């Protein structure tokens, strides 16, 4: 600024663009889907780190029986913060951030349809995070991962912790809904010429599916949160027993959201894997239509299975069987997606690079988690295993498999597009095997402790003589190993931001249009909008270029032979 004022005012401005504002202001005020998506992904990875710290503190407390490292209140606060951070501030925004960054590029759009709406979504999400962690310095919520009414009512938790939880998750959920609205509009209106729905890549299909899912479940959660806030602050009775309220209402509404979010995280992960596998096996995805249809079915059927979480509640056996039918029906779409992913790998020419490695790990962990969830959904089995650490293990296998392994697969795959650099391959391998071993060490003992000894979830301590001491110690060690592995990838991402090898526009030889743009893309994404003629437009472009190059190289040889 000072430099400019010293100079005489220029009469003709002809030397390029006007000076840009400082970078952080550009990013903070940008409504470009790439900037918004990058901030979402970066913030989500930051919250992954914070969630890990909270998880490790809880695991330290549970390393030995009757430990007194954390007081009951401190443990319950960590538990509540961990749940909110992992779900609302890591897993969902990571999926949404990648959708928001990649999907417009994949469909050949020059931006999103409602950029300011998406930008507002990001800001609301960040505001939610600010509320949650400014609450951290006063009195965080002590109501658990899902603050079941009436424990979350004013009568039982009179400090402002639950209000902070409700406000923060409410802001974040509203933000997700806004981003989803922008994605739905973009995918509907801004596809490139020729990009019919039958040619839209799987990941962009998943973006549409997950956005519609969020439009369905987000408002349910927002309504529940609003009702909770009314109950707590304006003498409401929505979830209070007697005088017209019903505690189970909160259970229904919140589980609809959490079950839908669970499905969203898995759909995003499987869709990212469905982009990665064909590229690294050098063959088109098997059963593309089936995969897309199955992802849609998972969103619908999976969300309808919400009462799987309420099989011990007084809801009537018919509803229990309904929940079980929905959960068991999920075997078909999940099985078909995984079948097609694996049959694409088998017989392909595999390049075992980091994205494929993490994708394979994700499939493995997700399969274990979902198989255990299947067992949990069998009604009489739930009467035994509900709310034991067996359920914790099942959920964590599926969500760490989907959110962390699947998320990291997507991160390694699209990092060159996001930053223009590639992440270190050696560090990626170390990270993967540490994480993979850590996940099994951390969660398999919980299967045993929950199944054989009925250790309950969410408890701040367990007792010696209940036969679960060894399991919990191993689980704590495993969680540390898992955390080290995760930190290696986070460190890799930070270091590669400036130190990674420069990436070309088409780092992996992908078939979808995001690889047609520069890495990172220009603000307008595409100089020329390609005319899409098939499901694999980038491959068509590569072949056309190769054809043209071959012709232009062949032509001079005819007239001027090389000696």
């Amino acid at each position, binding site marked *: 600024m000072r430099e400019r004022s010293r100079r005489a005012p220029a009469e003709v401005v002809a030397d390029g663009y006007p000076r840009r504002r400082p970078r952080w202001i550009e990013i903070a005020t940008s409504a470009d889907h790439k900037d918004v998506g990058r901030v979402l992904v970066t913030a989500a990875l930051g919250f992954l780190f914070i969630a890990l710290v909270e998880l490790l503190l809880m695991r330290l407390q549970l390393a030995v029986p009757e430990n007194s490292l954390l007081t009951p209140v401190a443990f319950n606060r960590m538990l509540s913060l961990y749940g909110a951070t992992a779900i609302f501030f890591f897993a969902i925004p990571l999926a949404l951030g990648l959708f928001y960054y990649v999907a417009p590029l994949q469909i050949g759009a020059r931006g999103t349809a409602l950029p300011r709406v998406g930008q507002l979504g990001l800001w609301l999400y960040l505001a939610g995070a600010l509320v949650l962690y400014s609450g951290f310095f006063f009195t965080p919520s002590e109501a658990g991962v899902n603050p079941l009414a009436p424990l979350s009512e004013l009568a039982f938790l009179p400090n402002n912790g639950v209000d902070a939880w409700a406000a923060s998750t409410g802001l974040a959920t509203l933000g997700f809904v806004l981003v989803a609205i922008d994605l739905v509009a973009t995918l509907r209106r801004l596809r490139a010429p020729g990009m019919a729905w039958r040619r839209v890549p799987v990941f962009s299909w998943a973006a549409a599916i997950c956005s519609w899912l969020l439009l369905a479940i987000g408002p349910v959660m927002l309504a529940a949160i609003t009702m909770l806030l009314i109950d707590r602050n304006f003498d409401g009775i929505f979830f209070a027993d007697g005088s017209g309220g019903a505690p189970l209402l909160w259970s229904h509404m919140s589980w609809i959201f959490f079950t839908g979010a669970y499905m969203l995280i898995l759909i995003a992960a499987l869709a990212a894997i469905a982009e990665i596998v064909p590229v690294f*096996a050098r063959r088109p995805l098997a059963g593309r239509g089936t995969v897309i249809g199955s992802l849609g079915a998972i969103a619908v059927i999976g969300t309808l299975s919400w009462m799987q979480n309420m099989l011990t509640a*007084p809801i009537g056996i018919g509803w229990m069987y309904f929940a079980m039918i929905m959960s068991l029906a999920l075997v078909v779409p999940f099985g078909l997606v995984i079948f*097609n992913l694996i049959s694409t790998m088998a017989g392909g*020419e595999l390049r075992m690079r980091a994205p494929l490695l993490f994708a394979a790990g994700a499939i493995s962990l997700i399969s*274990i988690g979902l198989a255990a969830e299947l067992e949990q959904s069998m009604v009489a089995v739930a009467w035994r295993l509900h*709310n034991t650490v067996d359920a914790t293990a099942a959920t964590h296998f599926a969500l760490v498999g989907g959110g962390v392994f699947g998320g990291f697969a997507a991160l390694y795959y699209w990092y060159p597009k996001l930053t223009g650099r590639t992440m270190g391959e050696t560090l990626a391998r170390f990270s993967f095997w540490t994480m993979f071993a850590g996940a099994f060490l951390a969660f398999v003992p919980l299967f045993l402790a929950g199944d054989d000894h009925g250790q309950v979830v969410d408890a701040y301590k367990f007792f010696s003589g209940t036969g679960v001491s060894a399991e919990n110690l191993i689980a704590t060690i495993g969680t540390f190993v898992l955390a080290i592995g995760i930190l290696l990838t986070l460190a890799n991402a930070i270091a590669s931001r400036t130190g990674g090898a420069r990436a070309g526009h088409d780092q992996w030889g992908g078939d979808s249009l995001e690889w047609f743009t520069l890495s990172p893309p220009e603000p307008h994404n595409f100089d020329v909008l390609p005319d899409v003629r098939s499901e694999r437009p980038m491959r068509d472009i590569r072949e056309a270029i190769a054809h043209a190059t071959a012709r232009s190289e062949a032509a001079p040889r005819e007239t001027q032979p090389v000696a």
Partner: protein
Amino acid sequence: MAPHSPGTDQIDTLLWIGFVAAAILVVAINGALIYALRGRRGRRGPEPREASGSGRRTQLRVGGLLAGFAFVVFVLSVIYTDKAREVPGTGPAGLAAAHSKPLQIKATGQQWLWRYDYPNQAFSYYKLVVPVDTTVELELVSTDVIHTWDVPQLAGKRDAVPGKVNHVVFRADEQGVYRGQSATFSGQAYAPMRVEVDVVSPRAYKAFIEKQKTEIQEAQDRVVGLIEEGKVP
């Protein structure tokens, strides 16, 4: 943990069925995954052919196989769940008075203790005493937040929700002490909120009820006395 009530047998069996079903899925998927990853590596040449499994018929076959699998699991689940829900009759060694219908006891969950109200105005805290070989029906209610009553050896777990009544039925086949733990997060002292069931002979049960009644009566009399003497405001 060996089952000690008819319903828990069925739960145990279904648990094994579920484990086998889950194991089949895990082994099949991970086996196929490992097989697929051992395939050809990074040779550059013409693009490999499209996967043979991409045809519509294969998709239908695989989908049908999965649906069949889910259906078998569903049928088995319903069979064993219904069996687990059957109310067993009181056996010969049980409480004579309870032959016609189950012995009804009200279990009230409260932060962070269970209260049991027996027939005949007797009540106890923390420990539930029931006669052996007798069908017992617990009416689960809560006065504050949601709790879950769970003694794995005797019955499946059930939630006590404020404003609702839930039921647990069991028939303990052997005398002894059975332990469990409340299984829904209920606040600060959730971890030590345990459940203990003392299964005794019908005679000992009757004696326990009488003892509780007299002790409760004595305590009430004492309080009334203190109030009358003016020692308590």
